[in-house]
């Protein structure tokens, strides 16, 4: 199937507008395929050279009743000819496949924005389910927008006349019709999606054909009916030369850990229990057994971490992954890994809480949990990726620190990072750190808790090594020998040694970087997935000549050595977080710096405009 040349001829007669950034949100029923529409638009935009950033937003229910408000699923993407860091504050375009999708999303659409509506779904019953008293297509409630009322479902069915697919399945092709419309409007090629559909449905050629017919029908409809009186172009972004691919945070996490294990020379063991939004890491890792990756879907969260610790004891790279509620269940076992000083990485893809909370929405409120949420003095390293692609690098860092210092390290991601995507500059193999691990084999002078002078790490002596038979466990260990000890002074010493060991990671982590001038009026200090909004806010303010810089902590325990010096170089430190001020509490406690906390806990990332307004209070 190919796109006819007639389209280009028609398009040439229409005015074209060059834009540097566009934010589109596709919204529909959770069964409408909006995530596929969004990811296809994203991949195509990335391939033609735009910078992109995405925010999928789907309900916790798998299929809430069709047409209902809780069943609305959305996918927002920002594509640009500039280097961008966020999925955009307000969509410029909203594609709403039914009244519920309109109702849920209209409040976010910018004034005067483009609204594409599937009129076929604005039936009396759907309007009632969405809580509309009158049909918004007929009243003037949408007069503030550029509304395009299109019969997307019936046009799709018309295009598929004669298809052998059952009616229901034909109807489901309407997301590709909508995608075709948007490809025309933003001047995107169809080929990447054609290729994807052909690959995805290679076993079901009739489904592939129907989807492609819908895609072309949408494109051609826009082209021939002149429903849109102009179209847009978004040029290539100037980004660092190199080879790129689009990647979600959870994918980057999975392949980051596979790479990390490979760099250590040991197989990866992943123990996990399914939980949103971390399960995709389990799915991805289980596909890569040819790397020697062992995935173990345990009976519960505790067994998942128990097995990972057992595997670490026996010499694998032990990894477990979950979200906040799972961390709560794993706490006692984390304490055991701290006590037995085994390398272990714990992934926490944070979600809204407490308890079950908002399973599919993002939040950054587990920082204090991973820092302190265990009995007694129980320190662990904490790293936090800043962007979806950064998950790859920080996964390697987590393994490097855990194996070098022989202690658990948390990898603190969140739902927004995990499900969000961006272009990833694929690293060259030479850029990856040297981190091969070695086990103790020398019998002479072996003591299970005799420490390396520089790192305080104890030797990793794995079962199967002749002459090094020894016992470890959760009871306090005697310094050096590792025998059970209830001696008060020994306990005091061991508590301090375990804390000191984590503190010494400082010597092995990069300094905190400042974006903008190294000193000035305001520093925006962030961690985790707020990177995009904070950096964009700082850039926009700097462009206005305002004295604002930003810094982003990717190492949260310990903090980089220069953290205090950076903070003290600014009159004001503002810490925006998607919690009630957890990093701010740590910074204030540790450095006695009067940092201001700016917080929001709505299950969504910050808008750039919200951050700018906050900074303006300090100027």
């Amino acid at each position, binding site marked *: 199937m190919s796109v006819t040349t007639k389209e280009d001829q028609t398009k040439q007669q229409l005015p074209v507008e060059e834009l540097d950034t566009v934010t589109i949100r596709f919204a529909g029923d959770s069964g409408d395929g909006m995530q596929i529409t969004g990811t296809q638009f994203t*991949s195509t935009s990335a*391939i033609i*050279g735009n910078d992109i950033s995405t925010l999928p937003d789907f309900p916790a229910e798998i299929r809430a009743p069709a047409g209902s408000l809780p069943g609305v699923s959305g996918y927002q993407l920002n594509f640009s000819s500039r280097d961008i860091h966020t999925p955009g504050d307000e969509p410029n375009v909203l594609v709403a496949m039914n009244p519920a999708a309109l109702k849920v999303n209209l409040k976010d659409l910018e004034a005067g924005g483009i609204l594409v509506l599937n009129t076929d779904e604005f039936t009396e019953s759907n309007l009632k389910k969405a809580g509309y008293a009158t049909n918004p297509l007929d009243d003037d409630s949408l007069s503030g927008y550029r509304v395009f009322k299109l019969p997307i479902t019936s046009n799709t069915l018309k295009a598929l006349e004669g298809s052998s697919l059952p009616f229901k399945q034909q109807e489901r092709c309407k997301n590709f019709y909508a995608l075709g419309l948007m490809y025309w409007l933003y001047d995107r090629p169809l080929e*990447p999606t054609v290729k994807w559909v052909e690959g995805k449905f290679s076993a079901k050629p009739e489904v592939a054909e129907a989807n492609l017919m819908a895609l072309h029908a949408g494109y051609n409809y826009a082209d021939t009916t002149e429903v849109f009186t102009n179209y847009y172009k978004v040029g290539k972004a100037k980004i*660092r030369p*190199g*080879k*790129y*691919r*689009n*990647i979600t945070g959870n994918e980057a996490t999975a*392949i980051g850990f*596979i790479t990390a294990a*490979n760099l250590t020379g040991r*197989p990866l*063991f992943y123990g996990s229990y399914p939980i949103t939004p971390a399960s995709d890491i389990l799915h991805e890792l289980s596909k*890569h*057994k*040819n*790397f*020697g*990756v*062992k995935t*173990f879907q*345990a*009976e*519960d969260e*505790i*067994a998942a971490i*128990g*097995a*990972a610790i*057992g*595997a*670490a*004891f*026996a*010499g694998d790279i*032990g990894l477990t992954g979950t979200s906040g509620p799972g961390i709560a269940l794993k706490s006692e*076992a984390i*304490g*055991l890994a701290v006590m*037995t000083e085994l390398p272990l990485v714990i992934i926490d893809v944070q979600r809204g809480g407490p308890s079950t909370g908002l399973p599919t929405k993002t939040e950054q409120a587990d920082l204090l949990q991973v820092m302190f949420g265990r009995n007694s003095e129980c320190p662990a390293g904490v790293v936090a990726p800043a962007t979806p692609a950064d998950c*790859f690098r920080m996964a390697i860092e987590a393994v490097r620190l855990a194996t070098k210092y022989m202690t658990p390290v948390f990898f603190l991601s969140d739902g927004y990072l995990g499900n969000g995507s961006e272009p990833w500059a*694929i*690293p060259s*193999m030479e850029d*990856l750190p040297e981190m091969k691990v070695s086990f103790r084999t020398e019998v002479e002078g072996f003591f299970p808790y005799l420490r390396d002078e520089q790192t305080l790490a104890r030797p990793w002596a794995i*079962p*199967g*090594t*002749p*002459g090094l*038979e*020894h*016992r*470890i*466990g*959760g*009871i306090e260990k005697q310094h050096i020998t590792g025998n059970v000890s209830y001696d008060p002074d020994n306990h005091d010493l061991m508590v301090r040694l375990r804390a000191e060991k984590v503190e010494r990671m400082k010597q092995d982590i990069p300094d905190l970087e400042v974006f903008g001038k190294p000193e000035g009026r305001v520093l925006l200090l962030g961690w985790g997935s707020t990177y995009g909004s904070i950096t964009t806010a700082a850039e926009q303010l700097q462009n206005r000549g305002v004295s604002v810089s930003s810094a982003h902590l990717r190492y949260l325990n310990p903090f980089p050595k220069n953290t205090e010096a950076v903070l003290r170089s600014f009159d004001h430190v503002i810490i925006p977080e998607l919690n009630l001020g957890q990093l701010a509490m740590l910074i204030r406690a540790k450095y006695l710096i009067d940092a201001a906390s700016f917080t929001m806990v709505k299950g969504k990332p910050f808008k750039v405009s919200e951050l700018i307004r906050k900074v303006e209070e300090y100027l």
Partner: protein
Amino acid sequence: MMRDESFIAGIKEDMSTNGEKTNGANGQTPVKLTRKDFQTDQEVRWCPGCGDYSILAQVQKVMPELGVPKENIVFISGIGCSSRFPYYMNTYGFHTIHGRAPAFATGVKLANPDLQVWVITGDGDALSIGGNHFIHALRRNIDLKIILFNNRIYGLTKGQYSPTSELGKKNKSAPMGTIDYPINPLSMAFAAEATFVGRSMDIDPKHLSMMVERLAAHKGSGFLEVYQNCNIFNDGAFKSFNEREVRDEKMIYLEHGKPLLFGKERDKGIYINKVKPEIVTVGENGITIDDILVHDENTLEPNLSYILGRMQYPEYPVPMGVFRAVQKPTYEQMLHGQVSKAISTSGAGDISKLINAGETWEIN
């Protein structure tokens, strides 16, 4: 990056062996180990007279006979009196957290299937706080050797009732008697379809050492319940049937392929009437030896074993021995089989290919 051949070779080598390497497999001359080689320098801290001493002695006695080098043996435990066991075994050992030992042991065995992995647990550890892990380790048929020390009481926390305490037992946390119905550990093991299920007791060292050897030899999830006396908090819990003087009449030793006979004269036997066991006497009421149930450990369906496992004192003689020993592919064999298959179908993992996969584009 160049393919990391040594890494890949390591994985392939893991594939080629499954099951513990025998003594000397590490390139050394086989050395005959003795019981002493398995003792540690740590002072044993169980109460004097505790049944745990006997179990420790039998395990230490059996170990040298197994032909497994001690560096390839790992003892893993949870929390409780019994769980101090690994500290006294001069092998690799891991004293973990309450109830979770099977989970840690699973990780050890999956990381290195060459290791012989033992789990030492108690009635509270395995059946109460760790009930979930116990069931799932057994149903996965992972090659773990689980010994449950059942003393029907919480000892380390000083005398509360356990999930195997009899209904009505008076103790520190139930001064008016327990109102918890006890659970039968064997029933749980059969329900989870453990491939090896046995029972022994601390005061019959010969039988105990035989059972430990059988457990060691089994490939797959193995479970051995050991009746163990807590002389401080539940002294004499089993004495009404397991003391030497009454044992012949009140216990029955299971032997594969032999009729289930007991009694001083070995004239009493178990006859299955529909699905209910009955005690009969050979030579009375027309009963002949052919009416007596013949024990078969190898039946895949656990139904008959379940019936035997439910026989309790005082209604029935208490069975001792191997209830069930069947072979099924183990979890670690299947997991490592999938890894080998993935390598043979997709080629050994190449990081450069992995990170460059999917749709990529160049920015110049």
